[in-house]
C-alpha cells in the first residue's frame, strides 16, 4: 500500500461517515424519516454500505495493484497480511485487498441489479396473481411452483452449458430471473388479503382504474415485506454469485468477484486463511448492513409505527 492508497481509503471512510451523518441530519427534519434512524444499527448499516460502494467506485485509487497481477509467483504467494499487502496475497501471488476492492464492483453490481430484477418481477407477478385471482392466479402460481421445484443452480448450470461464459448483463438477468419466486408468493399472499380491505373498495368507488388501485393503494401497503425481501434478496444474490463463481461459472477469470476470491482461496484455507476470511467478511458485512437498513426502512415506511 502506497501513501496515496491510504489517503484514498481514509477519504472513503470519512466520506461514508459523512454520508451517514448527513442522511441522519436530513431525516431528523422529516417526521416519517426520523424513524429510519431510530436504531443506531441503521446508521452503521448505511455507513458500511456507503463505504463499500465508494470503495467499488474508487477501486483504482484505493487498490495498490491491478487485481489480476501476479506480483511474484515464487516468493510472494500466500504472503500473510503486511504493510505492503494489508490483506495478504493469494496462491497466485495476487494482492487480496486489491482484488476485494475491484471485486466489489462485480459483487455489489450483480447483487443490487439481480435483486432489483428479482424483486420487480416477483412483485409484478405476485400482485397480478393476488389481485386478479382465478385463472391468472392459478397459471402464475403453478409456474412459480415449477420454478421453486427446479434447483436454481442446475438451471444456471444449464444456461452456462448452453451459452458458455455469460457476460455481466446476462449473469444479472440469469440470477434475477431465477430468484423471484419467493418474493412473488410473499407479495401474492399480501395482496390477497389487502384487496379485500375497505379502502380498496373505496378507491374503486372514487373511480380509480385497476392499475392505480394496485400500484397506489394495494402495493404501498405491502411495502414492508417487499423491502425486507429486497434487502435479503441482495444478500442472497451475492451468495448465489459467490457459489457460481466458486463453481467456476460466474464471472470470467481473472476478473475478481468476492465469490471467486473465496473460490481461489479455498485450496489454501489452512495455510493462508486470509484469502477467504476477508472476502467472506465483506459478504457478511453487506448482508448484515442490508438487514439493518431494511429494518429501519420498515419502521420508517409504516405510518402505524408510533413515534417514539
Amino acid at each position, binding site marked *: 500500500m502506497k501513501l496515496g492508497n491510504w489517503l484514498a481509503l481514509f477519504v472513503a471512510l470519512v466520506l461514508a461517515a459523512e454520508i451517514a451523518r448527513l442522511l441522519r441530519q436530513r431525516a431528523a427534519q422529516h417526521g416519517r424519516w426520523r424513524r429510519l434512524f431510530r436504531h443506531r444499527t441503521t446508521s452503521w448499516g448505511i455507513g458500511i454500505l456507503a463505504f463499500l460502494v465508494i470503495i467499488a467506485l474508487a477501486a483504482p485509487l484505493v487498490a495498490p495493484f491491478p487485481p489480476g497481477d501476479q506480483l511474484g509467483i515464487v516468493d510472494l504467494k500466500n504472503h500473510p497480511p503486511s504493510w505492503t499487502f494489508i490483506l495478504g496475497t493469494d496462491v497466485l501471488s495476487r494482492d487480496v485487498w486489491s482484488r476485494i476492492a475491484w471485486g466489489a464492483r462485480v459483487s455489489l453490481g450483480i447483487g443490487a441489479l439481480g435483486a432489483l430484477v428479482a424483486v420487480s418481477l416477483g412483485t409484478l407477478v405476485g400482485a397480478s396473481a393476488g389481485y386478479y385471482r*382465478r385463472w391468472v392466479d392459478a397459471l402464475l402460481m403453478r409456474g412459480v411452483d415449477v420454478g421453486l421445484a427446479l434447483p436454481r443452480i442446475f438451471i444456471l448450470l444449464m444456461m452456462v452449458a448452453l451459452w458458455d461464459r455469460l457476460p455481466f448483463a446476462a449473469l444479472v438477468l440469469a440470477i434475477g430471473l431465477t430468484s423471484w419466486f419467493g418474493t412473488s408468493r410473499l407479495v401474492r399472499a399480501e395482496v390477497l388479503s389487502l384487496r379485500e*380491505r*375497505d*379502502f380498496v*373498495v*373505496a*378507491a*374503486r*368507488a*372514487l*373511480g*380509480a*382504474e385497476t392499475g*392505480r388501485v394496485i400500484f*397506489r*393503494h394495494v402495493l*404501498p*401497503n405491502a*411495502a414492508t415485506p417487499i423491502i425486507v425481501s429486497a434487502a435479503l434478496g441482495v444478500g442472497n444474490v451475492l451468495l448465489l454469485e459467490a457459489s457460481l463463481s466458486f463453481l467456476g461459472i460466474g464471472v470470467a477469470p481473472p476478473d475478481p468477484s468476492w465469490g471467486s476470491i473465496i473460490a481461489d482461496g479455498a485450496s489454501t484455507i489452512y495455510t493462508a486463511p486470509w484469502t477467504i476470511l476477508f472476502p467472506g467478511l465483506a459478504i457478511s458485512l453487506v448482508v448484515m448492513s442490508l438487514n439493518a437498513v431494511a429494518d429501519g426502512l420498515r419502521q420508517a*415506511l*409504516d*405510518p*402505524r409505527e408510533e413515534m417514539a
Partner: protein
Amino acid sequence: MTTPATTPALLRVRDLKTYFVTEHGKGTARAVDDVSFDLYPGETLGIVGESGCGKTVTSLSILRLVPEPPGHILPGSVIEFEGRNLLALPAPELRAVRGNQIAMIFQEPMTSLNPVFTVGDQIAESAIIHQHLTRRAARARAIEMLRLVGIPDPEERVDHYPHQLSGGMRQRVMIAMALVCHPKVLIADEPTTALDVTIQAQILELLDRLQQELGMAVLLITHDLGVVAGHADRVVVMYAGRVVETAPTQRLFDQPTHPYTEGLLASVPRIDTPRARLHAIPGQVPAATAWPSGCRFRPRCPYAWEKCLEEPDLLEAGSPGHTTRCWLVTEPERRQVKR
C-alpha cells in the same frame, strides 16, 4: 324537501337482482332480489332494514362494486343514471361516473381510509383522477374540503395519517373525499354506525348542511329508524332482498302498512310511551339461499293467512307515493286477526 312528481328521477333502479354463488354448491344467495326505486334530485332517500336484508349489496350494485365472482348482477336489472344504464356502461365511462357524479361513503371510517397515505393525498385523489388537477391545486382543494367538513386546522390536518385522527374526524375525511368533485348523488352506507351517538348527530347534521349547499341527492342506507326520521324525505323499507314498503317519511311513521315496518317501528324504544318490555319481531331474517316461498315475511308475520302463500306486488296503500307489498292493503279487516 318534497318531490314534485313531474321531475324526472336522477337515479332509477329497476328489477335489480344481485345474486351470490356460494361455495360448495350450497346454492345461490339472492341477496338483492327484484329491487326498484327512484332517487330524485336534491332529496334524501332512506333505505332501512335489518342486517342481511340486502341494503349494502344494493348500494354496491349501483356503482358495480359487488365483488365478481362470487357476486353477479343479473341481466335485466337496470340502474339508470341521467338516462344511462350504468350496468351496460363500458369500464372507462363507468369510472368517469364513480367518484365524480356518484360518490359513496362507507360504514367503517377506520378501515375505509388507506393507512399509508395522508388524508390530504386521499382527498386529492379523486380531484386528480377526474379533474386532472396538479398536485399543488389538489392539495389546496383538499384543505378547502377539510374546512368544508368542519375539521379544525385544515392546513395542519391535511398532512396527517388516518391513524392520527379520531373516528368522527375520519368519517368527516371520508365525506370530504366523496364530495371533492361535487357529485350529484351521494350514497351513504351506514355513515354513522361505527360512531358514538354525539358524533353521529354531528355527522348527520354535516351531511344535511352539505346536501343543501351542494344540492345533491343522498341515498341514506341505515338500520336506524331514528336517523331516517330525522333526515330522510322518503323511505324504502327492505326485507329479505325485496322492497316491502315505500312511503314519504312522515306517512311511514304515521301509518306503517306492512307488518314488518310496523314491527320495526314498535321495536324502537320510545320516551313518551312507557312500556315494560320492548317489542321484538319474532324469529330472524332467513338465509339468503333459502327465502321462504310466497310472502317472505310470512313465517314471522303475526297476520299471515293462506293468501300469503302467494306473494303480492307492491300495492298502492291509499296515499300518493305509498306502496306496500302486503295483502292487508286489499283486506284491511285481517289486521284484527292476530295469530
